[in-house]
């Protein structure tokens, strides 16, 4: 059922023109607005391609992707921060507004504050640590107050402590603002901690082999990691992930 309050993917198939290999097959997925969805799956199964199709950066070979949101209302965070090296943090974060001729310094400061990087607003990317760069990248993605936030393994290059801290900050941001989030990751713990719903793709060509809402508390803190329900859920998804490697 197609609705204006959800992102809808119907019978989506994706082949890359370079080698005509099938990357994604028969993807049917509804993402209601306000949901935090995580996509898991083995390397090369098409997780990032799926995310890029939702962003409108790729088109499906067959089927349709309906995203009733303007691209200006999306934020995208890549695996690496990808800041413009000739601009300082402030100038990087203001970029989406600058491109729309709609600069609002207060909202930029607000985004910087949200990710605790206001003090570094005049620093250049080469002066920042990996964690700070990612904070700036998240602030850039959120400066326009997007309705949809797409994240492609944003924390994979960070150390465990910073990764955990950013996970908590992202989760609490979602709890406060309830924006729609689609998150791609390799990390089971990240997926279980952050999401309301997890899907697992099989190995290439990626098909959805697991799709489940997680029955975990809304407010999530570090303590969740040691709870029985968290461990059981992580194990359950892990088993599907194991299956994903052999699923045809």
């Amino acid at each position, binding site marked *: 059922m197609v609705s204006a309050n959800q992102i809808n993917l119907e019978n989506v198939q994706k082949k890359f023109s370079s080698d005509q290999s099938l990357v994604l097959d028969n993807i049917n997925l509804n993402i209601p607005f306000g949901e935090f969805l995580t996509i898991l799956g083995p390397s090369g199964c098409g997780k990032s391609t799926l995310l890029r199709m939702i*962003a*409108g950066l790729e088109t499906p070979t067959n089927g349709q992707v309906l995203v009733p949101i303007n691209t*200006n209302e999306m934020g*995208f965070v890549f695996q690496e921060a990808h800041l413009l*090296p*000739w601009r300082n943090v402030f100038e990087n974060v203001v970029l989406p507004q600058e491109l729309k001729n709609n600069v609002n310094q207060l909202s930029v400061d607000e985004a910087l504050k949200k990710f605790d990087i206001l003090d570094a607003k005049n620093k250049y990317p*080469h002066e920042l640590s990996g964690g700070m760069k990612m904070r700036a990248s998240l602030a850039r993605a959120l400066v326009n107050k997007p309705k949809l936030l797409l994240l492609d393994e944003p924390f994979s290059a960070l150390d465990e402590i910073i990764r955990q801290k950013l996970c908590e900050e992202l989760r609490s941001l979602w709890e406060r603002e309830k924006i729609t989030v689609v998150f791609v990751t390799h990390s089971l713990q990240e997926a279980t901690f952050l999401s309301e719903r997890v899907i697992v793709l099989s190995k290439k060509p990626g098909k959805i082999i697991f799709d489940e809402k997680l029955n975990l508390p809304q407010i999530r803190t570090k303590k969740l990691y040691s709870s029985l329900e968290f461990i059981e859920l992580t194990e359950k998804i892990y088993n599907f992930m194991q299956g994903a490697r052999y699923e045809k």
Partner: protein
Amino acid sequence: MKSKFIYPILPLIIISLALEILVKTNFFPSYLVPAPSQVFKVLSFENLSLWKALGQTSLASILGFTISLVLGVLFAILLSTSKLIEKVFYPYAVFFQTVPIIAIAPLLVIWLGYGLPTIVASSIIVSIFPVIANTLTGLRSTEKPLLDLFRLYSANPKDTLLKLKLPFALPSVLVGARISSGLAVIGAIVGEFIAGGGIGEVVNVSRTQQRVDIVFAAVFLAALLGLAFFLLIDFISKATLKAWHASER
């Protein structure tokens, strides 16, 4: 800072002193290699026209280099807009790299006459290719995720060029400019050999008069001019890239 200038000057002083002794002791005949003191004499007192010639060559080189830089960057931007345009026009850019300027300089005289226009044209032909090639490489190497980001934010082509592709290409443009700056001086002097005026004419005339001291002085001034150009681009490069690019930190 001092050592930056002293170290390169030291070999010049040592070689000059050795040459002075070798010429004064008639080890080298002075009609083949002039004594450095004689070259300095030419530079300082005898020949005011030499300095006038330097002024003419400087003007032609600055014009040639500036036009090469502007046209080269614009041409590279045009080539970067599509693979088809690059395939069609890039071979013509290579023409500037491979053409023997000394062979077509007489044609330039026929088309543009004697004087500045021919000399500037010669300077452009010799110096434009490094700007085109390096700018194109810089424009083509823009990171794909950043291009995706600009697409996602519905950036128009002008913003994508001015706020992403050109700043990304700037280090490459400056590498091209550095190479091109020296070539612009060479191109101008070659043009002056055919079209007259400047250091090129001084060298040509002095050669026929067996005045190797003037030839040496003229070559020395040409080298200084090329060096001044190079240092200027180096300064601009440091000023624009120091804050963010690894090559100038």
